[in-house]
């Protein structure tokens, strides 16, 4: 309800607009600009964070990856050579998720190895990303 007595009791949008449009302005304190510029100069003078040396690390990482893959293949081959009877004996006591490694031969073992490598790669990338955000 709009009242007619006294200074208008506004209950419509125009009254709200009128009140909120004329909010008092404050002036920046005298040292504000100097303070901001000091902070900016400190920021500019600070050494940038040392980036990870990808160029130097890449050959090492590649060699490490290849060695790891070779070791994995060797291990998988060694497991594949185990007698099937031994494997079936193992299979009774192993969880079902491990069975393809012993029953399926080198191919399924390779899949597991690739999955493990992928998981490790994703973990490393995720960790590096999180560290980079600090």
């Amino acid at each position: 309800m709009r009242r007619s007595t006294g200074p208008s009791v506004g209950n419509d949008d125009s009254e709200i607009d009128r009140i909120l449009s004329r909010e008092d302005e404050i002036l920046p304190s005298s040292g504000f600009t100097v303070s901001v510029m000091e902070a900016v100069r400190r920021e500019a003078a600070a050494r940038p964070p040392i980036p990870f040396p990808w160029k130097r690390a890449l050959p090492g990482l590649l060699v490490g990856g290849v060695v790891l893959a070779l070791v994995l293949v060797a291990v998988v081959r060694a497991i594949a050579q185990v007698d099937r009877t031994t494997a079936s004996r193992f299979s009774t006591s192993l969880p079902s998720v491990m069975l393809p490694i012993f029953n399926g031969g080198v191919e399924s073992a390779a899949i597991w190895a690739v999955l493990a490598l992928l998981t490790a790669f994703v973990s490393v990338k995720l960790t590096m990303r999180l560290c980079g955000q600090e």
Partner: protein
Amino acid sequence: MGMNASASDDQADVDKILAGDISAFEGIVRRWQGPLINLANRFCHDRGRAEEMAQEAFLRAYRALSQWRRDAVFSTWLFALATNLYRSELRRIPARTVPLADIAEPADPRAPDGGLADRDYDYDRDSAVRRAVFALPPKYREALVLFYFHEMDVTTAARSLGLPEGTMKARLFRGREILRNRLPQRLAVAHLKEA
């Protein structure tokens, strides 16, 4: 200073800074310190904190200067950056607010005459409306703050908040609706007591 002159000054200063002349940033600070502090003050109603938040906004702008895509005016980019910072700062450490239901403005009992009482009443009502805005849920409060800060320009306010205009209009409508529902009764009661 006109907006075009300001925009070209901003662009020239940004070019200098990116070329290594840090002191050119002072021009940007001098041009935009008032608006940025006042915007922060509308968010937190605390002068000291407003200056701290504005300083942090300038610092972030300096760091991110190379990310300013020149398809938008510099001030639009700066306000959007500052608005984001102010919102997240206030989510981290909320400003002190009075619950909307607790906002009631008694008239000044010292008023010796009707004229002064009217002026006091005006002051009380305006103060109550501003405090009521401050007590709104954040999404409506932010919409109203930006809308009135940008002189009721929905497009600019929506851009500062990173919202579509339709969403901005809906939030403004709802925010005003809450104010309309809450305040008139309280103010009317205060006015009747005064009479």
